[in-house]
């Protein structure tokens, strides 16, 4: 395996049964993700995450940066075979790959495999930056090692899950529907008191919150596009942007803040309806980046 020094690794699953186990760089063109001879649509899930990270490094980095992005993924429609292949391969290649950062995404939550992976990561000479979203964030919390992570990306409901020390999955979270924006501060405190939070958190909601060690450092509430809640994959695009920025070496707070703004701007510029998809949002990604550059006067 020939890989660039310290790549950024994305670990997840592709929502089709026959996508083979793949550890390779990837590219994105129009509405398709490409890796070697394989391709898939980018409309949701890990493909949407990968596509957005690729666009982020393309428009906010130099062209060469995208070759440092690697995907480790396999087809999985929920039965877990692809997830297990990915877990196994990850444990095998971590020492050789020595990634500078890892974004964990849609994987069947499995505490046993999670702990094996974390054990291998702890053995690396230089600890990579660890970002966990989706199913892997659930596994990280359930394992009791949430504090080993650098960034979690929960929505308000998932924040309630992190705050509930007994819940093994958001499906069993107590008082899930009492979790609203007004309770966010309380839920954040509970998640940190129970050691069920990463050191940084990007809490998605009507108001987005960047949290560091239990303190809300920054909030973003505009532009407000309520229909984004209906659109599957908008959380994946947010994690893709923040991961792309971290892969470019951006400071954590700036990466989270920029990701909030670009994701919201895509929602504004695409003029979506509840029937839109992330493909519609990604089409305006370059414009959203320009708008963000004007906002920050970069």
């Amino acid at each position: 395996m020939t890989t660039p020094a310290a790549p950024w690794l994305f670990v997840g699953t592709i929502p089709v049964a026959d996508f083979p186990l793949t550890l390779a760089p990837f590219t994105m063109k129009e509405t398709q993700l490409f890796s070697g001879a394989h391709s898939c649509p980018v409309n949701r899930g890990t493909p949407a995450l990968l596509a957005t990270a690729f666009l982020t490094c393309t428009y906010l980095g130099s062209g060469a940066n995208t070759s440092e992005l690697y995907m480790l993924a396999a087809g999985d429609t929920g039965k877990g075979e692809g997830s297990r292949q990915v877990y196994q391969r990850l444990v095998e290649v971590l020492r050789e790959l020595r990634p500078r950062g890892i974004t964990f995404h849609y994987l069947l939550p499995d505490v046993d495999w999670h702990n094996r992976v974390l054990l291998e990561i702890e053995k690396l000479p230089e600890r990579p930056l660890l970002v966990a979203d989706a199913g892997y964030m659930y596994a990280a919390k359930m394992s009791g090692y949430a504090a080993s992570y650098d960034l979690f990306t929960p929505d308000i409901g998932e924040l309630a899950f992190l705050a509930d020390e007994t819940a093994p999955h958001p499906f069993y979270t107590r008082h899930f529907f009492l979790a609203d924006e007004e309770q966010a501060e309380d839920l954040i405190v509970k998640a940190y008191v129970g050691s069920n939070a990463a050191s940084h958190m990007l809490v998605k909601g009507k108001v987005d919150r960047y949290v560091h060690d239990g303190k809300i450092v920054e909030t973003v509430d505009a532009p407000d596009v309520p229909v984004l809640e209906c659109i599957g994959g908008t959380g994946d695009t947010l994690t893709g942007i923040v991961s792309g920025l971290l892969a470019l070496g951006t400071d954590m707070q700036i990466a989270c803040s920029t990701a909030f703004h670009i994701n919201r701007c895509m929602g504004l510029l695409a003029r979506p309806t509840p029937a839109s998809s992330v493909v519609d949002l990604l089409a305006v990604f370059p414009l959203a980046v320009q708008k963000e550059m004007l906002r920050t006067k970069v």
Partner: protein
Amino acid sequence: MTLLSRLRSAFSGSIFSGRLSPAQDRRRAEPSANPNAEAFLTFAGTGEVVQAESILQAEGLPARVMAPPATLRTGCDMVIVTSLMHAFRAVSILKAYQLTPLQMTPVGEDLLEPVSLFQHKDFGDWLMVRAANMKITVEKASGRIVNASGGGCPDVPYLAAQLIGKNIYETDSDRKDGQTLCGYALHLAAQELRRVQKSAGG
């Protein structure tokens, strides 16, 4: 204790190997005289749990999905809880459907209840229903599913691809293709959406 040593000790413990302590084994084996006593059935996968719930309810037996006891949790788990009195009948029925539970165990500790409330959001021509961490949206006039969002298990993007564009009354993909807790929550949201649409004359 370092993180590494904590992880090592975790692997030698019973939680991650799925074994129970002798005390837990004794507790499980004690018969219950309580007529309201319950038992839970465990299965190889969550997809089988969803099927088992439908079958048992169709046969008139009490059956509901809950989280397994903490000692048996491995990740994305759920079990079927039924009455202890009917548990053996339930197992026989399921076997007839080629669905054999891994084990039947009397409930010996409080099991976690799944989220059972639904949230509705009206977006004019569209209606979104949320169950736990999953959301599904339909076009009111046609009943066409236009989006599915939320969740973190790998069947969620797959289910979304199966459901989007289909009529909510003409697809049962949410019931038969879901494999995880997120998939099950999406199924509950879809059922609620069917109920709401029907009562609204949609």
